[in-house]
C-alpha cells in the first residue's frame, strides 16, 4: 500500500479532518485550537474548513470544557476536547472519573459516552513540574475509560480515527516530544482498532515493552543491544486500555525475559500492573524477574539536567535488559 512520510501532528490533523468530513457530529473545542490552530498546530486549518460551529476556542475552564464534552457525547455528538497539558486534566477529573467513566454502568448500559479528550504529556524543555507529567496511570485505573498512547504518526492517525467511531470515553494521550517526529502513514482510509499491540521490533532474547515517547528510546536501546549481540523484541501496546495481553504474554513466553519502560514515575504506574499480569500468567516461564525502568518518584524539576535525570534514558533500558539476561557479572540495583 502507498505510504507518505508525515509528522505526528499532521497525522492527527488528518484523522480529525477525515472524520469531521465523514461525520457532522464530530466537533472540536479547546484553548487556542481554532483561530491559532492549536499550540502544536494539530488543528491548523480546521476552522477555515469546518467553521466556527464545529471548531471552537474556549476560555480557560478545563472542568467546564470536559464536562460539556461529556454532556455532548451523551446527547449523541462526537466531541473532541483538547486539553493543552494532561496536567490540566486534573481540573476536570470529576467529569472524567465520576461522569464519563460511570455513565454506561449507571444507566445499565443504555447510555454511552463517545467522548474524546486529546491532550499531551511528558517531560522536556524545562516546562517544570506542572507541565511535564505522564498521568496515564490515573486514567488506566478507572473502569470505563479507554487509554490510548500512540508513539508514531501511523498509530496516531489510525487510533484517533478508531476513537471517533467507538462508543466509550477515550483519553487520547499524545507526547510533546512526538509532534514533530516523522513516520510513514498509509494512504487512504487508515484505522487501527483498540487492543492490538504492535511489535515495533521483532526479537528473541528479551521482551521490551514501551509506549508513547519511550518507544523511540527503547528502539534505540534495542539497536545498542543488537550491537552487543542481544536481540530484543520491542512491543508497543498502543492502547493501555484495552490492553493486548496476548501479544505481550506470547512474546514473554518466547523470550522468558521482560523489561517494561515507562516515562511516568515508578510508584503505582502502568508498568507495575503489566508486571503483575506477566508474573501472574508466566511465573513458571520467566528466567528473571520482570524489570521496570521508570521515572523517579518525585515531581519533574525545571533544571534541564535534573529533568533528564528524572526520566528513563536509553542507557537505563540497555542496563535493565542486560540485567534480566544476567549479561553482566555484578547485579546492578533494581532501580
Amino acid at each position: 500500500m502507498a505510504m507518505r512520510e508525515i509528522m505526528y501532528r499532521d497525522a492527527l490533523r488528518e484523522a480529525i479532518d477525515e472524520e469531521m468530513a465523514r461525520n457532522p457530529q464530530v466537533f472540536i473545542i479547546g484553548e487556542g485550537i481554532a483561530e491559532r490552530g492549536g499550540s502544536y498546530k494539530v488543528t491548523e486549518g480546521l476552522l477555515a474548513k469546518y467553521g466556527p460551529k464545529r471548531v471552537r476556542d474556549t476560555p480557560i475552564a478545563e472542568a467546564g470544557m470536559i464536562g460539556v464534552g461529556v454532556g455532548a457525547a451523551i446527547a449523541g455528538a462526537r466531541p473532541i476536547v483538547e486539553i493543552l497539558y494532561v496536567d490540566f486534566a486534573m481540573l476536570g477529573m470529576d467529569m472524567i472519573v465520576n461522569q464519563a467513566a460511570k455513565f454506561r454502568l449507571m444507566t445499565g448500559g443504555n447510555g454511552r459516552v463517545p467522548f474524546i479528550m486529546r491532550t499531551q504529556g511528558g517531560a522536556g524543555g524545562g516546562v517544570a513540574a506542572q507541565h511535564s507529567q505522564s498521568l496515564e496511570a490515573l486514567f488506566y485505573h478507572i473502569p470505563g475509560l479507554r487509554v490510548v498512547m500512540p508513539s508514531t504518526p501511523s498509530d496516531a492517525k489510525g487510533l484517533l480515527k478508531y476513537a471517533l467511531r467507538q462508543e466509550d470515553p477515550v483519553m487520547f494521550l499524545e507526547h510533546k516530544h512526538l509532534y514533530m517526529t516523522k513516520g510513514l502513514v498509509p494512504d487512504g482510509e487508515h484505522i487501527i482498532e483498540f487492543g492490538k499491540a504492535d511489535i515495533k521490533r521483532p526479537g528473541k532474547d528479551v521482551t521490551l515493552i514501551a509506549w508513547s515517547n519511550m518507544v523511540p528510546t527503547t528502539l534505540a536501546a534495542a539497536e545498542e543491544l543488537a550491537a552487543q549481540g542481544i536481540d530484543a523484541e520491542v512491543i508497543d501496546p498502543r492502547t493501555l486500555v484495552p490492553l493486548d495481553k496476548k501479544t505481550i504474554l506470547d512474546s514473554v513466553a518466547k523470550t522468558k525475559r521482560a523489561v517494561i519502560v515507562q516515562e511516568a514515575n515508578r510508584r503505582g504506574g502502568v508498568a507495575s500492573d503489566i508486571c503483575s499480569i506477566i508474573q501472574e500468567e508466566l511465573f513458571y516461564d520467566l528466567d528473571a524477574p520482570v524489570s521496570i525502568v521508570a521515572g523517579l518518584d518525585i515531581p519533574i524539576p525545571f533544571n534541564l539536567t535534573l529533568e533528564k535525570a528524572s526520566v528513563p534514558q536509553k542507557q537505563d533500558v540497555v542496563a535493565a535488559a542486560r540485567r534480566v539476561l544476567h549479561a553482566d557479572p555484578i547485579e546492578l540495583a533494581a532501580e
Partner: protein
Amino acid sequence: MTTPARTANAPSKALLEKIFRTAYKIRVFETEGIKLYRQGLIRGYFHPYLGQEGIATGVCSALSEGDYIASTHRGHGHCIAWGADVKRMVAELLQKETGYCKGYGGSMHIADISVGNLGANGIVGAGTPLGVGAALAAQIRGSDAVTVTFTSDGGSNNGTFLESLNLAAIWNLNFILVIENNQYAVSTRIEESTREQDLYKRGLAIGVPSFQVDGNDPIAVHDLTREAVEMCRAGKGPVLIEAKTFRHMGHHVNDPGKYMPEDQLAYYKARDPVDRARAALLDMGGAKAQEVAAIEAEIAAEFESAVEFSKASSEVTPEAFREFAVGY
C-alpha cells in the same frame, strides 16, 4: 432583576390538569416511596422532592419533545415531570432489572437518554456542564432543542456553575439553568454558604438574562420557563431561573430535619405547590371536585401497580453482571 413580558392569556384547563397531575404524581411517588424505604425495600440514598414539586412541574410543562433535561441527586420529581414511567422508576429503586437502569443506578442515577433525560446525578453541580453539553450538541446538529439543567443552591457554589454557564453564554446555546433554591444544603443554611442569597445575580454578572420566581407556584414557573424557552429559540442564548422553595422534610429519608425552623416550614407548607396546582385546576380551570378526586385515585392506583410490577420483577444476576463487566 429584569422580568420578561408576561403573556396575558390564562392557562387552559388542559394545561392546568397536566400540571396538577404531574405535581400530584410526584407527591404520591415520594410519599409512598418513603414508606417503601422505611420497609427496607429501597436501599441507598433517597432525597425526597416533597415541597419542590412546583418547579419540575412548571418547568417541564413548558418544554417540548426533543428537548433535554439534566437533574440532581433530588431527581425523582424531574423524572416524573419529564413523563417517566413510574413502573420503571419504582423498579429501579427496588434494584430490579425492569428499572430504567436495570438496578445498576438507583435513585441518584435514573436516566433515559432515549427521551432526552440526561439523568439524575450524585455529584452536586455536575448536571450543569452536562446540560450545556447537550445544548451544544443540539446547536451543532442544527436543532432548536432546549436543554434545562436543574441545579440547586448548593450546586451554584460549585465552580462548574461559572465555567459552564459562561460557555453557554458565549456560545449562545439554548440552555436554561434552573436553580432550585430550597435555602438548605443538608443542614447548612444558605446564609452560611453565601453573602448574596439572590442567586440569579450570578447569571447577570456574566451577561446571562436571569430571573427569580416563586418555586412553589407551578403556574408562575411554567410561564417564566415558556418565556425563557422563547428567548432561547429567538437566539438570545441561555437563561437562568432561580426558583425559591423549601423542603417539606429533612435532606433525605433518614434526616429528621430538626434544624429547619418551624415557622419557615409552616410558611412554605401554607404555600404547598400541590395544593396550589389543585386549586388552580378547580378555580381557574373550573374542574369539578370529583374530576380531581378521580385523577388522584388514578394516580394512586398507578403507583400501587408500579409497586406490584416491581416486586414481581427480577434482579440482574451476578453472572449477567460479570458478563457486562467483560471488556470494561
